[in-house]
């Protein structure tokens, strides 16, 4: 095997003359390593405080000093959440700030896209457990479904509107993404705003639906259904739609951050990974909703 030219180590295809050519930032591409970061540890510290706050609120830590007082638990929970969110933003900020010193933006973008796809695969499996639970119970228990009462009707026009709203938001999100690729920044901004509004509208519809259902006594512990299969159905209904709603909310935060960065002029026509990730995530949430809608409302 010939020994020249020797390829540089993977991920950083710099000049192959070893150790002498520095890039414009003064780094040697052949020995460049990612800079250190305290943020992952700080985020973990915030995450560690939160469950102990919850346990303390439950009053289960007598004799643990201040942790024995539920009020301290509230403080701990809120502090932990604040540290978690704040440090997560610090982490994102460090990533954005370090963008110029990465050596192979194309490879980095591709890796990030792999990341999002794999992450969504994991998410899909979590929803898969919800669907698995639903269809198994549906198959073995003929009573598994919503109660049919005189004043209670499951489904109806509201959820159809909600579905329509969410599906439209996926289209506007895609238009925004295409506009971004053509560097039509104003159109992209407008369409992201529309997407966010539609998403909020969807959450509003579902929130109203939840409120209506709970008012009419459709929840797992309500006396009229607590001892029947309707209770398990209610549990999976609220868990499935709630878990999905959480994802919509996270997607909205992502879209909002994309909008803010667009306003700050962060994105280029060829490099706007955060926008791509947010739009993929949004489409994923959309697809899951369609599956969930069919499962809960049509089959159930």
């Amino acid at each position: 095997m010939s020994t020249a030219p020797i390829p540089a180590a993977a991920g950083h295809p710099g000049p192959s003359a070893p150790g002498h050519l520095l890039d414009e930032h003064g780094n040697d591409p052949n020995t460049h390593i990612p800079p250190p970061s305290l943020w992952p540890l700080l985020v973990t510290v915030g995450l560690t405080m939160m469950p102990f706050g919850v346990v303390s609120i439950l009053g289960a830590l007598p004799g643990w000093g201040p942790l024995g007082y539920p009020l301290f638990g509230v403080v701990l929970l809120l502090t932990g959440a604040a540290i978690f969110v704040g440090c997560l933003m610090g982490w994102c900020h460090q990533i954005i700030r370090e963008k110029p010193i990465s050596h192979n933006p194309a490879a980095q973008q591709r890796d990030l896209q792999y990341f999002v796809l794999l992450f969504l695969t994991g998410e899909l499996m979590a929803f898969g457990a919800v669907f698995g639970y639903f269809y198994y119970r549906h198959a073995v228990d003929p009573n598994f479904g919503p109660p049919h009462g005189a004043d209670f009707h499951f489904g109806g026009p509201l959820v159809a509107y909600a579905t329509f709203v969410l599906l439209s938001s996926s289209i506007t999100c895609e238009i925004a993404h295409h506009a971004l690729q053509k560097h039509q920044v104003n159109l992209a901004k407008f369409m992201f705003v529309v997407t966010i509004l539609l998403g909020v509208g969807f959450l509003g519809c579902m929130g109203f639906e939840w409120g209506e259902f709970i008012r009419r006594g459709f929840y797992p512990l309500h006396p009229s259904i607590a001892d029947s299969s309707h209770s398990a159905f209610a549990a999976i209904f609220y868990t499935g739609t709630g878990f999905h709603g959480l994802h919509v909310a996270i997607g909205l935060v992502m879209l909002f951050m994309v909008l803010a960065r667009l306003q700050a002029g962060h994105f280029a026509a060829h490099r706007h990974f955060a926008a791509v990730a947010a739009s993929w995530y949004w489409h994923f949430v959309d697809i899951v909703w369609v599956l969930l809608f069919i499962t809960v409302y049509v089959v159930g």
Partner: protein
Amino acid sequence: MNAPAPMPEIRHYTGVMNWLTTVDHKKIGLIYFWFVVLMGLVGGAFAGAIRFQLASPGATLEALQAAQLAGTAAPMALFNADGSGLFGNYHRYNEMVTMHASVMIFFTIIPGFIAFANYIVPLMIGARDMAFPKMNAFGVWLLFPSAILMITSFFVKGGAAASGWTAYPPLSLTGVGDPGQDMWVMGVHFAGVSSILAAINFLVTIISLRAPGMTWSKLPLFVWATFFVSIIQLVATPVLAAAVTMVLMDRNFGTSFTVASSGGDPVLYQHIFWFYSHPAVYIMILPGFGAISHIFAAFSRKLVFGYWGMVIATGSITAVGFAVWAHHMFTVGMPIWAQNYFMIASLVIAVPTGIKVFSWLATMWGGTIRFTTAMLFACGFLSTFVIGGFGGLILALVQIDFSFHDSYFVVGHFHMVLVGGSVMLLFAMTYYWWPKMSGHMLSESVGKWVFWLMFIGILCTFMPMHVSGMEGMARRIPVYWADFRLTNHLTTGGYCLTFLSALIFFIDLIASYRRPKITVDDPWQINDVQQSFEWATSCPPPDYNFVQVPPIPVIDPTGGKH
């Protein structure tokens, strides 16, 4: 190799801060490693408490019998039903069993393999770091809150989770208001997130950061194994999170997922739980399968026999592993066709596993074998794992499983594959790669003691368990009939040997730092045959691993020449 130019750092950290801020896969691998060593000792101590309790038949069942037979008083027990023991009542025993399993599975064996994968995989594929270095750091830090939650839960009101590591409802729904079980669930969530993030990171690293020329057909088997295991972790772990979340919600939010009287289904919980936890068994063994291939090849001075056979076998174990989960729960009631299916599918797993075992034997065949400690552990693994595997074949047969379910036969079987398999693998990997990871050798003479004590200890601990189980001793019970006295004495004695060897190993591990630095890249003198990148850089490697991909002519691992 060319001298690296000094690299302008963005920010310098020294001392402890250097470790707290690190995103270097090697440092993170070492943090994983020491976390695992610590947790292994904690889990081992929990096992000690269990064995101490089972050292004698116990106070209640035995009391009448003992008085009748010989008049011997039962020795001091750690747990007694009336709470008079050292650690209180039998509930504590259940907590101890639960936490022994949880610590060993979530904090020792699974992160143990991740520790080595973190350190070795980027080196093996010639990368400078993992694809997402900060996320890698996040993954290891997340294990700490997870472990803190589980271990501190011993001291909260009501004590730790006591429903076994499987947390089957309705048992796990008892004691609502006592947060031990809830803290356990949250701990599993943290460990699960850590596991998923690590899996994504490995997948992207292996797909995307391979050095030029490191094609899929040259990928070392350890990298292949990590790749497949990461797929399992990514796909299965969210399902575990869903299962334990059902328990959390049923306990705290009034849902009825697993409450049969409200239309829920405790058996469905078991299905969802084992959909994760059976593939998790392969998370706990496949990376070691990959690593052990390198060890057999290295110390036989040969190439791995049947490279593609090994890759395909690993892949098929991954795939079939998702379709056999219900063999953990034959006795809960399921249709005959389902029993037959899960029995046959479980037996099918033996085929790729057999391919691997015979390929390892063929790797050694005709080789120039050096019995270093790593090689001894590899050979020891092969024998103990095959014994455990045969136990698995027996348990996969529905008819026999109905007799053996929840007996000590099951306990003996899975300890034989987890301790005789995974833990032996971890020791073999440690003895093989510790020189690379620390830059210091472990003592070979002490290592031989560690191996023989552990090997005999493992056989002595877990073989008699099979006998106890066949005779009818139930698992998870703190007392037993005096008929099982002999086998339980053997088991306790074996435990002592095993734990002693682990302690000797631990002392040697610390002592290794006082030995002189290794000055060569390849202390085992194997890389002329094996041609693996991690032996082509210094011990330990510099921060940037390689200035360039080492210019060694890569031998085709399939045996062909370029």
